């Protein structure tokens, strides 16, 4: 009989090695993530709900090309969350989602641009993305915990990794889908690669990239909930406690708040595209 291959042990060794030798890098990442998260969290939490809700409604109204129904729906949903006394938790979750999406886009969009211009890089990253997207989301929690222990930062790390693939894929796709003639226009009029990217490729790919942003946000929201298992704060934690105590009321209310957030985020990002 063939002995069991020691894949698990090898990965464990690798993790040990990283922890021991790259501790400084992990610290830097932790500090960076914390800063971004706290920034968004502070802004969202410091504003009282009665001021926040109308501001958000106006914002929704404007970015959605004056969709009054969507604005009213957002007001109703947020008032319900406030009424259920889940405001602070919801803002925490929102901060996690926004911060994670922000970082995922910050890394994902440039990688997508790179992949669109380089077939070798595209082939490599495609395999990696397939791997990342088929891996069950819970698995991301393990290295996150090992490297960053418990709390919001490992939650964010897992969320960023989970939410990034669509940003890369759709940026890449959006740029590659631009008709050859438009690329020729840029070249024929003497555009530099940078001008071509900024004036032709990115604007042309924007609708597709925005679809990527939408998916990125939705994935971030689902992962931000799961990440409560490793100590990420917010509505997810409330659901988790509800499960542990078999408290249906508590779990359902938190779940409802997540659904409301999801609907608002989804509708807003989708209507930006159109």
């Amino acid at each position, binding site marked *: 009989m063939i002995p069991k291959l020691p894949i698990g042990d090898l990965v464990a060794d690798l993790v040990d090695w990283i922890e021991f030798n790259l501790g400084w890098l992990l610290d830097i990442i932790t500090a960076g993530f914390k800063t971004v998260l706290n920034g968004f969290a502070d802004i969202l939490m410091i504003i009282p709900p009665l001021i926040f809700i109308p501001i958000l409604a106006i914002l929704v109204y404007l970015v959605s090309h004056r969709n009054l129904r969507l604005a009213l729906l957002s007001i109703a949903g947020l008032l319900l969350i406030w009424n259920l006394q889940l405001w602070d938790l919801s803002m925490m979750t929102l901060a996690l989602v926004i911060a994670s999406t922000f970082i995922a886009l910050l890394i994902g969009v440039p990688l997508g641009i790179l992949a669109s211009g380089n077939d070798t890089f595209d082939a490599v990253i495609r395999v990696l993305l397939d791997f990342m997207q088929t891996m069950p989301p819970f698995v991301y929690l393990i290295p996150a915990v090992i490297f960053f222990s418990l709390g919001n930062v490992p939650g964010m790390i897992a969320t960023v990794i989970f939410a990034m693939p669509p940003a890369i894929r759709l940026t890449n796709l959006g740029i590659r889908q631009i008709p050859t*003639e*438009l690329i*020729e226009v840029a070249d*024929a009029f003497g555009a530099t690669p940078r001008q071509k990217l900024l004036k032709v490729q990115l*604007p042309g790919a924007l609708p597709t990239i925005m679809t990527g942003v939408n998916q990125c946000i939705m994935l971030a929201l689902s992962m931000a909930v799961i990440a409560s298992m490793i100590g990420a704060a917010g509505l997810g934690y409330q659901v988790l406690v509800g499960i542990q105590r078999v408290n249906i009321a508590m779990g359902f209310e938190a779940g409802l708040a997540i659904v409301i957030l999801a609907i608002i985020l989804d509708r807003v990002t989708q209507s930006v595209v159109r």
Partner: protein
Amino acid sequence: MDFEEEPEVIIKVNQLFKIFGNDPKRGVEHLRAGRTKQEIFEKTSLIVGLDDVSFEVMKGETFVLMGLSGCGKSTLLRSLNRLIHPTAGEIIIGGRDIVGMNDDEIREFRRDNIGMVFQNFALLPHRSILDNVAFGLEIQGMPLAERHEKSRAALELVGLSGYETSMPDQLSGGMKQRVGLARALAGDAEILLMDEAFSALDPLIRRDMQDELIDLQERLNKTVIFVTHDLDEALKIGNRIALMMDGKIIQVGTAEEILMNPENEYVERFVADVDMTKVLTAKDIMMKADPVIYCKSGPHHAARLMKEFGISSLFVVSQHRILRGIVMLEDVVEAVKHDKKTLEETTIQDIPFVQLDTPISEIIPVIADSRYPLPVLDEDARLKGMIMRSSVLLALARKEPETNDS
């Protein structure tokens, strides 16, 4: 004919090759060794795009590259601004070989010298019409106010003033291509590359655009390289036409030269369906209108000229050969009998005439209704030649007509 300036060569293409595939230089050697496109593809899987192409384009002319799809015309056009990099040979434009330029040089060259119009318009969908037209100028780094001003002027040139703030998807196909044309013109480039520019338009709009291009050319006098697979279009707008097949230029010449003397069977088949009455114009079939008689001369002089040349009518002209009318033999004889001093009473005025560029299709009804030879005039009513019924028939029989070679 008028005295013409010695034309200046603006583009000179010398033994240009383009091979697609790995290690394309091999393909050039195979071609030089006399192997065919097909043989090379079977042996090396290299694809021959251009095979030893040489030609010259004169400043201010409309030069048409024509052939069936896959003949290499688009490849050749794209070589001229190096959207496609030739494998071997040289392209001299304005005294510089663009094949050897590095990336920065070619960018600079494209910005300053060449405008391009695309088959499917290729407008940037996220930009207003004005900003689309301004695209090339923006790339050059021109400040906003200046480039908008120039773009407005270019839009006016193509008859699209008032659409500045529209978006591309609000415009019809013909209007989109006007925008494409305006974009190419905005930068004041000397050379205009047009790739099947009107092929995506429906026939009526297409004809309008062809007329418009001819019109614009008269005012702007750019050097236009126009790719098309449509012979009628080529004949209509081209000063000279290059017929291509299998990456080679088979024949270069004016519409008449190609129609009258097809180089080989391929060209002959290509031009077989052309309606000659629309292609050939008065200047192609007219004969010399000599002798003529000056309007102050007397009937005796007219009678002697008619006798000497054995003709029965004479055109009467004033200074600079401006046409006054025609005198017929029987009237002249009558005038001589009555000892008239001038031809004034004898001259038949208001006779039908045609212009130099009137096509045969329009000449036929005129000449059928007229008892006289048909005078051919230029814009200033000067007599340039004349057309007899026989000259029309000769032209339609595709024989080389007598031409005016003065």
